């Protein structure tokens, strides 16, 4: 111990007069208080504000989207054309994304978000999105008229449609006879030939909509009697035949794990095109109705790379870029003339990308209603009783 040591090993950045009085114990206590306060601070109501546009692209852009949703070639092209580093993170459900954005109160660091349409009004009401500057998105003119007047965001104040699709079911024709067409057929097959080999989406609205579809009830119903009936039927009649809950069961098709799978149309196309034996699979747009979902590009409240974010959204609305997205994830975008361009690009299984017009006409967009909690608890009951 020849080296001289300072009596107190705590180093602080504080006025010299104060420093002498800071003991280790006080420091520890201070840490505890700061730690608790910063954690509790997550619940406070103030929100960081969005940076303003200045015409110059920032060198960075943070995108928070669904897993494997954007075409990496497009991301690379945007990065190289504009010298902007693009970071894409992924979430698995709207709820997960909203929880993260809501809890960080504008400090999440994300600039562009991809919420589904029905969640947009709530996100706006809770101040989680910023308004778009239309002068920075000239390609808005490329949108089909239907996508500029969506009920959840008329006039594209906060969002721009990204991709849309619908729900149906795929089945293995070597294991199932006949040609099912409706949700009632789905329920009959699940209880019959496909029993024990059925996969459902891990989504409360979608699972309940099978029953509502089969019985001709509006899938957005909030009538407690309908919900009770759905719970009774799904837990007792459907759950015992279900093998798995998976929101993207492409692997299950490729590995021939299931006979009957509830899935989205674009995922079915992706799975069929990677299957060694695509001919054994068939996809059904079931009657009488199914979900019509639209995912959107939105600007996060508190975004710091606003010019890049607008440039990115504008870039994605370019028809040639948009068709690259279609090619990648198998879902149409809101940009006009995509079907013709898809034919020109010789994309396969076009009927799985673009649902026929008479199908689109009968679809029902999912709404976020007071029944959401009840639907979640129904799904939980179904999962507990399944298998």
């Amino acid at each position, binding site marked *: 111990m020849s080296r001289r040591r300072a009596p107190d090993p705590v180093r602080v950045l504080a006025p010299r007069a104060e420093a002498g009085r800071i003991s280790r114990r006080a420091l520890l206590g201070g840490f505890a208080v700061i730690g608790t306060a910063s954690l509790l601070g997550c619940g406070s109501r103030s929100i960081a504000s969005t940076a303003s546009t200045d015409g110059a692209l920032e060198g960075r852009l943070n995108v928070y989207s669904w897993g494997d949703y954007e075409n990496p070639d497009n991301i690379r092209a945007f990065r190289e054309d504009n010298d902007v580093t693009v970071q894409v993170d992924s979430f698995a459900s709207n709820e997960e994304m909203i929880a993260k954005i809501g809890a960080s109160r504008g400090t999440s660091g994300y600039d562009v978000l991809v919420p589904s349409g029905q969640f947009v009004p709530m996100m706006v*009401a809770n101040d989680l999105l910023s308004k778009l500057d239309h002068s920075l998105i000239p390609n808005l003119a490329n949108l089909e008229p239907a996508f500029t007047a969506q009920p959840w965001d008329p006039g594209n104040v906060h969002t721009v449609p990204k991709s849309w699709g619908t729900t149906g079911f795929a089945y293995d024709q070597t294991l199932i006879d006949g040609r099912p067409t409706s949700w009632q057929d789905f329920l009959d097959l699940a209880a019959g030939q496909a029993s024990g080999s059925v996969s459902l989406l*891990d989504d409360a609205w979608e699972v309940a909509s099978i029953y509502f579809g089969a019985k001709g009830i509006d899938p957005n119903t909030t009538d407690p009697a309908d919900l009770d009936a759905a719970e009774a039927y799904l837990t007792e009649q459907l759950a015992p035949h*279900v093998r*798995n809950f998976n929101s993207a069961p492409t692997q299950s098709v490729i*590995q021939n794990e299931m006979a009957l799978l509830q899935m989205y149309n674009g995922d079915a196309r992706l799975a069929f095109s990677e299957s060694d034996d695509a001919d054994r699979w068939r996809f059904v747009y079931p009657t009488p109705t199914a979900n019509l979902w639209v995912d959107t590009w939105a600007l996060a409240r508190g975004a710091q790379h606003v010019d890049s974010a607008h440039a990115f959204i504008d870039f994605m609305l370019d028809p040639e870029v948009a068709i690259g997205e279609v090619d990648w994830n198998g879902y149409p975008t809101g940009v006009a003339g995509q079907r013709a361009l898809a034919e020109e690009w010789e994309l396969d299984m076009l009927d799985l990308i673009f649902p026929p017009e008479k199908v689109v006409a009968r679809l029902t967009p999912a709404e976020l209603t007071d029944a*959401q*909690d009840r639907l979640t608890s129904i799904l*939980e009951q179904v999962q507990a009783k399944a*298998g």
Partner: protein
Amino acid sequence: MARRTQRTTASLSFPVWAWLVFFVFTPLALVVWYSFGYKPDLFTAVSTDQLSFDRYGEVLDGVFMPMFWATLRIALTGTLLCLLVAVPFAYWMAVKVDPRWRPLLLALVLVPFWTNFLVRTIGWQVILAPSGMASDVLNAIGILDGPLDILYTRGAVQLGVVYNYLPLMILPLYVVFERLDPSQREASRDLGAGRWRTFFSVTVPDALPGIASGCLLVFIPLMGDYLTASVLGGARGTMVGQIVARQFTSAQNWALGAAMAVTLMAFVLLTVLIVAALFLLVRAVVRRARHLDLGVSP
């Protein structure tokens, strides 16, 4: 000088204390605090302006309890299977193998940790699929006729957890076996005990601390595991960790999720205490039954 040493030691433990305060006690306190709250509306995950025990009532009424028993079964079976596989392997590695090869074997045990937990589990999903490798092999050697039907069952989860947690059992066992003094085994043999008697009466009692820590290392994380079950379990092999995770992610009901997490922690602690008490009881009974009177009267 004594006081000075004490102060130095205290300052060395500072990172540990800071870590515990920041990353263990504070979050844990928040979880407990949230569990007394409620979910006020669709958009807010938790509110604590009215405190109650209602969430705990919901936990005990809902699907939590049946799920807990199923998970407990998987976890106890998994821990036992890990122990059965790990004891002979660790013993062989620590006692029988030439010491030159031990570091290599140890490295091989750790190799799976080089790959992400999720990726390894998905690997099993591919292997166990009806058109997967395991199915082909079993069909080729004639054990099975037709596609293998194990993926998305409790059996697949059981296999997955044993695979995932086995190294955590092998390592502490290896450490205790390696430290055992060979002369004790020799003494046992000289006194007429056979191989099995020596193993169960000399080696195992000395290895008990390692066995206990191995079982805890496997059992406790296994009770909270939800990844293995999400990937391999399907509808029939669900575990309680999945419904806790669901409350925090898709259902966005942090109050109920927190109450579930606290209940799970309490039950896991209770299980460990019950098993420990049973073990001490059995050991006391065995010792009494085996009591050896050496006939040296005072």
